[in-house]
């Protein structure tokens, strides 16, 4: 078995479900842990999409609710994944947590599937670096450095 056929047959992305009509992908090496009914600590005076932290390996990780960040209703926090990412080349690995509506699904995605970002919600352009088609849906690929970066301008609108 050559390497080409091996890599082509293995999933290389996780599709994450943030609620109805809100799915996005990250690389398979990004997700480090999935937790059912996580114990979260609410932090006051924080944005609606990032109101709590999750204690993981001696770190307190920000818990991102992408549904809320994209203007939808907040998710009930019953499923959470821990993600590790490098925000920019040369930077150390950072960690964050994402709330999910259902468990992640492994898929195979290639350049030939590239497509435009969904027009709605408009916030995808802020969080995604690319997009691919999968079973008739456009799946944005998240840039986690952007997702977990400073508060987004929309949060100031009240």
């Amino acid at each position, binding site marked *: 078995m050559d390497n080409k056929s091996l890599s082509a047959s293995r999933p290389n992305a996780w599709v994450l479900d943030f609620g109805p009509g809100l799915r996005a992908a990250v690389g398979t090496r990004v997700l480090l842990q999935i937790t059912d009914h996580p114990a979260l600590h*609410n932090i006051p*005076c*924080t944005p609606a999409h*990032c109101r709590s932290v999750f*204690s993981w390996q001696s770190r*307190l990780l920000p818990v991102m609710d992408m549904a809320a960040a994209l203007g939808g209703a907040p998710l009930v926090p019953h499923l959470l994944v821990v993600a590790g990412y490098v925000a920019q080349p040369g930077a150390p690995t950072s960690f*964050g947590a994402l709330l999910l509506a259902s468990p992640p699904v492994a898929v195979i995605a290639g350049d030939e599937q590239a497509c435009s970002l969904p027009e709605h919600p408009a916030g995808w352009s802020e969080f995604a670096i690319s997009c691919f088609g999968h079973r008739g849906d456009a799946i944005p690929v998240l840039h986690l450095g952007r997702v*977990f970066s400073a*508060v987004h301008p929309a949060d*100031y609108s009240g």
Partner: protein
Amino acid sequence: MSPPLLQPAGTGTAALLRISRLRIALPQGEIAGITAAAEVEGGDAQPFSVGWVTHANQRWPVYCVSPDLSLLIVIPAERNACVVLAANSGFLGIMCDEAASVEVAPGQRQALPPAMRLPESPVLGLIALEDGEVACASSAQGLAAYVSRLTGS
């Protein structure tokens, strides 16, 4: 020399206030005194305050907050104490359920993640407590500015 009021509770000894499920850690040096809730005078309170506390021969306004840091005008039964904080050139009182001193090791403290920061928030950092809870690191001046902004004073 006065302690640096702008600094949130860091490593070393911090004052830990319990306010229902919320924990707030402040630099120990910013605590000017602690009184029983019964000693808070309730009459003629300033808007959105719950009364007055006497400290250094003067009366200072006392505020009561919820776990999400909203201002309450009725004191919940579990608020047993009033912590007097030194902020700016004066003092203010904050009601809490309990106040204690805790030692904070360097590994327990971390900055507030960038995605969680809002302008004018009094929460400046996070502290992982030994009992598994999480405290919000703040400062007397940060809390005073936050209260002042909410009350418009």
